């Protein structure tokens, strides 16, 4: 399935843009998507941490991804 991800902060710089498209196996989980992202953009692996946002919530690793989800790469936050 084809998914679209938003990228913020340093993730936007690492991934080269504020949205990216990826091909993902059906029924993939957030954990698998993170692994795929690190393979494709190794600098993501060098961050303190990063999380995935699925429909505007922080996703647990076993969260199933569907093509209609709003997905985002969330590097370490630093607001305030």
């Amino acid at each position: 399935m084809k998914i679209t991800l938003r990228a913020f902060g340093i993730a936007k710089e690492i991934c080269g843009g504020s949205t990216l498209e990826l091909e993902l196996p059906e029924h993939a989980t957030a954990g698998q998507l993170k692994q795929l992202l690190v393979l494709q953009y190794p600098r993501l692996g060098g961050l303190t941490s990063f999380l995935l946002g699925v429909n505007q919530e922080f996703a647990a690793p076993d969260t199933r991804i569907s093509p209609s989800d709003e997905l985002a790469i969330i590097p370490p936050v630093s607001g305030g």
Partner: protein
Amino acid sequence: MKIQLKISDTPLDLMACINQVTDPACGGIDVFIGTVRDETQGKPVLRLEFEAYESMALREMQKIAEQTFEHWPVLSIAIHHRTGVLEVGDVAVVIAVGAAHRAAAFEACRYAIDTLKLTVPIWKKEVFEDGEVWVASHP
């Protein structure tokens, strides 16, 4: 129980934020104002750039606000966060909490800013003379 949240790319209005939490039942208001410092670890800062995942940031701010009502007897909370380019001295965040008694206002306000910094998807880039850094991004 009154909650007011805002993410804005224009300068924050302190009085507008504080006015959101004033109430005849209110005896104490605590306000936290986060401003842009002129240096980080001894290094002069030229400016900051804030970016937000706005829809999700507002959801996380809503959770924080609701948690303050669960944990303390507070009457109202307003959380305003700025985005875009900020110069030294500019206001990045304002949190105002109103309560009948001051202890709850202080504790809830402190909780709100501490938690905002941990959970709300907003990112800050520090711009120095010789480069720039996304804060907290690397170990």
